[in-house]
């Protein structure tokens, strides 16, 4: 499974939840290999691991290393190119398009992450109680996660069109039309809304798993003490799912910074009016592909994407540790 878009990063990331969580119980005895089973042929363990190692090595790790390498060359699509030192990065510094991309990707994180940390938690609390029909609602809320990002993008392009449903409704209630797909800032905001809409169900499931681990007694005790619903939310629920909130913040901020499909589909390949809605990954795709693709320059932008995503991860995790202390 590839994770090329924010949406597809979703399944990927969910599983990390598992590994990232702190184990509460000690590992049961005898989980790892012990002295017992050892006498297989010396080659056979490698036969097991070989297909996976080969694919990951050739198509993930090697391209990663060559991206780092290419960033310092003037390589083009059909031309090998020479080492040029930091020339690509110097050019980036003066490239207006790069700063637009960096601005939009950063705005995306700032806009999307708070919504994706808070709204899915409220949604999870809404679908948590086992009342008749709740499984239907859970699956229905998950449907946008399942739908392909292209389908989702095109549905919203139609909904937000000048003559689309949203504008028709706005007009019917007398607010008047808005240029969701033509105004630079409204377009970015619309794309963010779509990202949040598509991600809600996914993060809802992560929160549901976390809420299942909150002891009922805590809520009951707080209720006996006279705490209302709002008070209980802030003094019982939020502290109990805090580590999950940090995880959601980390996952969603990394995904948001690398946004491509939503903006590409809604703003078009050139990134909206005068390219003002281009994101960094859109810029990588535009600069680096085609017969005249500047592979070296696109790689330099990719390196910036790596550095910022790693920095975002560290930032979120650090904020978590500080609150612990």
């Amino acid at each position, binding site marked *: 499974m590839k994770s090329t878009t924010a949406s597809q990063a979703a399944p990927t990331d969910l599983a990390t939840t598992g590994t990232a969580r702190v184990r509460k119980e000690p590992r049961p005895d005898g989980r790892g290999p012990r002295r017992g089973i050892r006498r297989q042929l010396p080659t056979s363990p490698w036969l097991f691991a070989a297909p*996976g190692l080969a694919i990951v090595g050739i198509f993930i790790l090697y391209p990663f290393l060559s991206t780092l390498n290419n960033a310092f060359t003037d390589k083009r699509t059909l031309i090998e190119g020479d080492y040029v030192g930091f020339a690509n990065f110097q050019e980036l510094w003066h490239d207006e398009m790069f700063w637009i991309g960096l601005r939009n990707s950063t705005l995306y994180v700032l806009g999307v992450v708070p919504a994706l940390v808070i709204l899915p938690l409220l*949604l999870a609390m809404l679908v948590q109680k086992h009342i008749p029909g709740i499984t239907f609602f859970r699956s229905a809320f998950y449907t946008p996660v399942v*739908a392909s990002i292209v389908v989702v993008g095109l549905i919203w392009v*139609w909904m937000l069109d000048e003559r689309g449903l949203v504008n028709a409704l706005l007009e019917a209630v007398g607010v008047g039309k808005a240029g969701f797909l033509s105004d630079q800032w409204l377009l970015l905001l619309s794309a963010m809304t779509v990202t949040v809409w598509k991600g809600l169900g996914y993060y809802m499931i992560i929160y549901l798993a976390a809420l299942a681990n909150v002891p009922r007694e805590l809520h009951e005790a707080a209720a006996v003490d006279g705490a209302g619903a709002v008070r209980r939310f802030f003094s019982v629920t939020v502290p109990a799912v805090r580590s999950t909130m940090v995880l959601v913040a980390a996952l969603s901020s990394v995904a948001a910074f690398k946004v491509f499909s939503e903006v590409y589909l809604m703003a078009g390949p050139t990134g909206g009016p005068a390219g003002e809605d281009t994101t960094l990954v859109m810029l990588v*795709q535009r600069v680096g592909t085609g017969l005249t693709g500047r592979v070296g320059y696109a790689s330099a932008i990719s390196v910036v994407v790596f550095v910022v995503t790693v920095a975002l991860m560290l930032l979120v995790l650090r904020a978590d540790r500080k609150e612990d202390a």
Partner: protein
Amino acid sequence: MPVWEIVLRYLLLIAVLALMIGPFLWQLSTALKGPHENIFSSPPKFLPSDPTLHNFERVADTIPVWDYALNSLKVAAANVVTNCVGAALAGYALARLRYRGRKAATIVFILAMLVPVEGIIIAQFTTMRELGLNNTLIGVLLPGCVSALNVLLMRNAFLNVPYEIEEAAFVDGANVWQRFLRIALPAVKGTLAVVAIFAFMGAWDDFLWPLIVLSDPDRFTLTIGLNYLHGTFANDERLVAAGTVIAVLPLIILFACLQRYFFRGVGEGAVKG
């Protein structure tokens, strides 16, 4: 729960439901509206007055939508097989077998999982060209055909299987392949199902990578074909809507059938680790 709370809950649930499902229904409604029906009416009309399947035929006349769907299906099915087999084998090697370099192999998969795919697509594209696989479905499939994340998922699943059972089989003379196939694999069926579902959806939904690797319209997958349809026939919303319905319907049906296993498997994965 007091009655007012139950009522409030259902009201909220229905409001959210409208928000999450409404756009899909609106798309379906647009796809079913005939050529003489005004799709821009104000106030908007949700039910087509004269529902027709004509738009679906027109999509097929405009782009080879069934060929694109078949291409997507091929890639997705192959992705399921390669991920299940490759991840199970490698996961077993990481969890259960003992050899020099096991730690190193684990680290390779962890590192690979951390690499952001969006940042390496240009280099992946170059690699693919060096292998002469650009513009082929094999090229679409290969980079994700055994994902590091699935390997680690399977590793965790195998770690949770009690070791004693395998030890007993070993004493009875079962070799490593027999132990893998007959004992370990049946014990991790749940995780394998989750891997299969994710692999299918991931491949069926993928957009950026096929967009880069495929240039020949004859070989497009459905997502790229839809983007092409949207770019070329942006004025005819009925047509684009019909195309998206063709792309999303199989997935929604698949998901509706499997959702019970899906939520159970995901829930287990998230809680247990």
